[in-house]
């Protein structure tokens, strides 16, 4: 029982990050119908920017949040404006492959710059915990969750209150109507993609506190982000949040799996990707439109 509660807490803490990961991915997918395979690469870049700032200038990771957001936003904006836009009217396959190629490029450039060594960000508070009712809660993860919730909240407000935010939502509902209302759709697309990248960067920064870093780290998060979107539905902040937390909890429970079949030992922690896949398959078979709707074409 006590173990379950610990898992629950761990799950929620991890889920916050997943929500941010999924949010960026979901916006681009829901509004532009682009599955951005470079999302993982963007996450990785955000993490490494944080690491670099931390290692070279001793900047606290939380302070580098704005930096990773801005850098990735600009990168995303430029990529969309000058590369993806070039094949905007091509079949979806084309854009899909393009983001794949970009992902390869970015990851490998990162490999050149930072080499394949695994790194970490260890701050003064990295190791400290507090205990509540027998459950250990690391401070770093609490801060991360708080940051994630704040970011999610800010995004929600912005999308619903600001002029650009409303323009974005209008575009996602009906491009034609939005255009007639004076929205510059091309500009919106570039902003949305930039936003997706920026959010990925932010997620990367948050991830750097709890996970180890290497250029290939983005891939699993891409998959999880996808699964969370399927779980929580597209284009909605609430969906990403609910989906992310739900997934985090499932993953935490799954990591408890510690079976021995015959001489075969199976441990849940090594099988994280398999867990993601299984969850995905189950959800798709049971409810093809995702738990909160709108996941399939």
């Amino acid at each position: 029982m006590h173990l379950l509660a610990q898992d629950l807490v761990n799950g929620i803490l991890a889920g916050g990050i997943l929500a941010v990961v999924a949010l960026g991915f979901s916006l681009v997918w829901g509004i532009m119908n682009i599955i951005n395979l470079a999302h993982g690469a963007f996450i990785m870049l955000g993490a490494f920017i944080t690491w670099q700032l931390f290692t070279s200038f001793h900047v606290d990771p939380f302070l580098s949040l704005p930096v990773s957001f801005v850098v990735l936003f600009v990168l995303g904006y430029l990529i969309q404006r000058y590369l993806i836009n070039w094949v905007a009217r091509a079949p979806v396959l084309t854009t899909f492959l393009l983001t794949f190629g970009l992902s390869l490029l970015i990851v490998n450039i990162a490999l050149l710059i930072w080499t394949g060594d695994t790194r970490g960000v260890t701050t003064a508070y990295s190791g400290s915990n507090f205990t509540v009712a027998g459950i250990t809660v690391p401070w770093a993860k609490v801060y991360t969750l708080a940051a994630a919730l704040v970011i999610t909240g800010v995004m929600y407000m912005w999308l619903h209150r600001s002029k650009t935010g409303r323009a974005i939502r209008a575009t996602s509902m009906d491009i034609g109507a939005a255009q007639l209302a004076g929205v510059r759709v091309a500009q919106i697309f570039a902003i949305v993609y930039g936003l997706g990248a920026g959010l990925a960067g932010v997620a990367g920064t948050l991830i750097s506190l709890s996970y180890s870093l290497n250029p290939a780290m983005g891939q699993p998060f891409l998959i999880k982000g996808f699964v969370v979107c399927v779980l929580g539905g597209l284009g909605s902040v609430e969906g990403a949040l609910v989906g992310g937390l739900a997934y985090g909890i499932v993953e935490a429970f799954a990591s408890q799996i510690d079976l021995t079949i015959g001489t075969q030992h199976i441990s849940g922690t090594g099988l994280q990707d398999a867990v993601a896949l299984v969850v995905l398959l189950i959800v798709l078979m049971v409810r093809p439109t995702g738990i909160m709707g709108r996941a399939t074409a």
Partner: protein
Amino acid sequence: MSTALRKIGLGGITGNRTALFISLGLMVLLLLVPTVLPGYQTLFRTILCFVALAYGWNIIGGYTGYVSFGNMVFFGLGTYCAALLSARGIDNLFADVGLAVVVNAAFAAVVGFPVLRLKGHYFGIATLGTALAVTDIVGNLDIFGGTGGLKVTQVDEAHFAIYYYAAWLVAAGAIAVTFLVARSKLGYAFVAIRENEDAAAVLGISATKYKIIAWAISAAIAGAAGAVYARGNGFVDPSIAFAEDFNVYPIVMTILGGTGTVAGPFVGALILSGVNETLGHTFLKLHSLFFGAVIVLVVLLLPRGLVWLIGLRGGVRTWIKSLQAYKA
């Protein structure tokens, strides 16, 4: 001659005829490698495996339009089929390939059933997830030898060429299958699904059924390539069987050469292998970087692939015009 060819559908979804004949010619030349260039046997054997993989991917990704990032799973499973057979003392290439084909086609059909109901790129990410998941699982299970890997029995040095010819046969088989599919009703079903899945349904094509068929064929080819590769390599472990390269290269090769054509994967495979070899010795780390750049450039500038370019009339101007076609 050309009207006759046109009447049987050649030149339509089969792709450029010139490129096709050149490719076939080169394939025949490749038969000579063990005798003429024995030192390069291993290299060309690997290239032939890539050719087969590219053709496998072309069926599901090129013709049906469903990008799969999971085909390396089939390759990997194929290698393990050979390894497991070897562990049980069965050292027959036909058995290897046979088992690999059956296992992978079945696996594709089973996994494909829920996953292929998704459309387009949803499928793509699901395959990526499958790839990562299977890599995890295999790495963790002992019957697969865990991370230590398994040894695969081989024939003696003198008869090594047999593995080359086996690889050649698999590649040739892949080309033949693609050719037959492209000319048959099946090929048209695939293309119809790629062009407009809903319109295809209206015309009587059950998309899920044909997508599963396409993926099963694709899987069988990749599996066969894997089995042969395992025998030729003598050793199998998760890092080899599920190497990123086997996932990415075939895709890049097919895109470069031309998706949805019969000659495309071959052309792409040869060119990229050639470049890879030349670069590989001087710039070891730049493989994937290079391939990433190739993908981006090809997608932006040459989305229909090189084979299209070969058949193009009107030269540079038509090409430039085609670039404008997709702009927003």
